[in-house]
């Protein structure tokens, strides 16, 4: 039985981590090494590792107008602001659903959730037409609004789960003491729900950070995010600059790896919209 377990886990682990290991190695190589037909694996023995690829990220790659950090900046601004908005609105919304009797609240909640299932490409055309009319195409604000509305469903569902766990007696005590509803929410619920808000923020941040469909179609010029930038480098006339791409990808995925580690206890909740709690 032990052997059977090892036979499942070890090969899968090796195969699953190999691509990420290869990414890290590629970022340390020279261009010629990355497309060599003699693959090299061990730094310092097989090939000379260097940080040149990381250093050259501040210079634009041939064929692109700006350097990597410009696009990273776009990604950061868009992801942070949309996350902030989604978590604030989502917490309020979840509080309402958690504490008040709302006619048809179940249907509303499921309607909110269903917006999360929409494929970006199926709704992008009307959004594009709308954005052109209001001058939001290729702007930071446009993507922030869109990501906020798409993350709101996730935020509401996750936060509702967290707020449901806070005993109602706490705020009832505050209400008896003469606090208004809003003050009770601000002074009792919010401090109790900070973990939940942090977890929700991590998941909203990750989904905005990784989004590609909308970013590609609505935002291909001014406020281009990193995934769209990388996708655009595929057809580079001077050859795909693999070391720089790998170095950029390392920087781009590093925060997400960190967040995954930090939020590991809540991953299950996050990926199932809070429907499974542990």
């Amino acid at each position, binding site marked *: 039985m032990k052997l059977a377990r090892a036979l499942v886990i070890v090969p*899968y682990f090796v195969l699953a981590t190999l691509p990420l290991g*290869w990414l890290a190695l590629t970022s340390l190589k020279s261009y010629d090494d990355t497309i060599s037909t003699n693959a090299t694996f061990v730094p310092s023995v097989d090939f000379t590792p260097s940080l040149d690829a990381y250093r050259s990220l501040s210079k634009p790659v041939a064929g692109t107008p700006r350097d990597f950090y410009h696009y990273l900046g776009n990604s950061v601004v868009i992801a942070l602001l949309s996350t902030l908005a989604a978590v604030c609105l989502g917490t309020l919304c979840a509080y309402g659903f958690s504490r008040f009797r709302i006619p048809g609240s179940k249907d509303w909640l499921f309607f909110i959730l*269903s917006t999360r299932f929409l494929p970006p490409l199926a709704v992008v*055309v009307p959004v594009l*037409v*709308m954005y052109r009319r209001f001058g939001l195409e290729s702007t930071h604000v446009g993507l922030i609004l869109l990501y906020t509305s798409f993350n709101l469903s996730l935020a509401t569902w996750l936060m509702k789960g967290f707020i449901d766990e806070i005993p109602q007696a706490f705020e009832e005590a505050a209400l008896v003491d003469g606090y208004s509803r809003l003050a009770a929410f601000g002074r009792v619920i919010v401090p109790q729900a900070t973990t939940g808000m942090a977890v929700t923020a991590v998941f909203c941040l990750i989904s905005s950070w*990784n989004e590609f469909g909308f970013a590609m179609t609505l935002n291909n010029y001014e406020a281009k995010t990193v995934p769209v930038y990388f996708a655009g480098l595929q057809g580079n006339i001077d050859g795909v600059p693999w070391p720089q791409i790998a170095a950029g990808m390392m920087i781009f995925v590093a925060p997400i790896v960190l967040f995954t580690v930090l939020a590991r206890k809540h991953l299950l909740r996050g990926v199932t919209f809070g429907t499974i709690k542990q």
Partner: protein
Amino acid sequence: MNLFPLIFNVYLSFTDADLSGGAVRAIGGRNYTVLFSQARYTNALSTTALFVLASVSIELVLGFTLALALRDHLPGKSALLTVLLIPMMLCPVVLSLFWNLILNGHYGVLNQLLGGLHLPQPQWLTDDGLKFASILMVDVWMWTPFMMLISLAGLNAIPKHIYEAAEIDRAGRWLVFRTITLPMCAPLLGLAALLRATDALKQFDLVMAITGPNDATTQTISARIYQVVFRDYKVGLGSAYGVVILVAVIAVATIFVRYIDALNQRTGKARV
């Protein structure tokens, strides 16, 4: 913000709207007639269906097997799990762009490793028979951890005393698996499969990154919409596709919603 696009989408699907502008005329159901009659278009529908079926079932079986192996105590289990879960949290399009380097038929590391083992070195990215499998492989790599995570939750929720009772009754390992483990995990596995199916229906990122939107063997509905709207400028026709995929997604989402509803009621956790 969420509702308006849906309604507008249905309206556009009955017009000949063009991305470059110009007058919009209502043309009735002609877009739908075109959509369902041309081979290229129905092809995208069947590619998507095949992709959903294949990816969800492979990931489910693999993820559940992994969960079974990882179920009992293991030194460093928590760290191991975290590492295994990382691929599903990272950006799909960015990682699949990098997979292009791994899968490259000439200098890709996969073929060099296969060559080292004296195995055939197929052209993963250019062979028409393999492109779809390559995309599927990347998707399986990315999303098997998701199935594993939910399967583990299901396995951990099975009360220990049931297994103890089975042991007293001298039930065989296979019998225990078939009559206790599998049925008690089934509700969560169903949930996982439904969640993944709604995601796989949208498949766009991997296709864009690995083969591009206009490849006959891998064109999913989302990729087809991209091609029709942003390369051919046929907004009306693209919207008709949008409506078709929306109907499919809403159907799956409705099943999903009913499903968790029933699940909650059965486990007595109905708080919604």
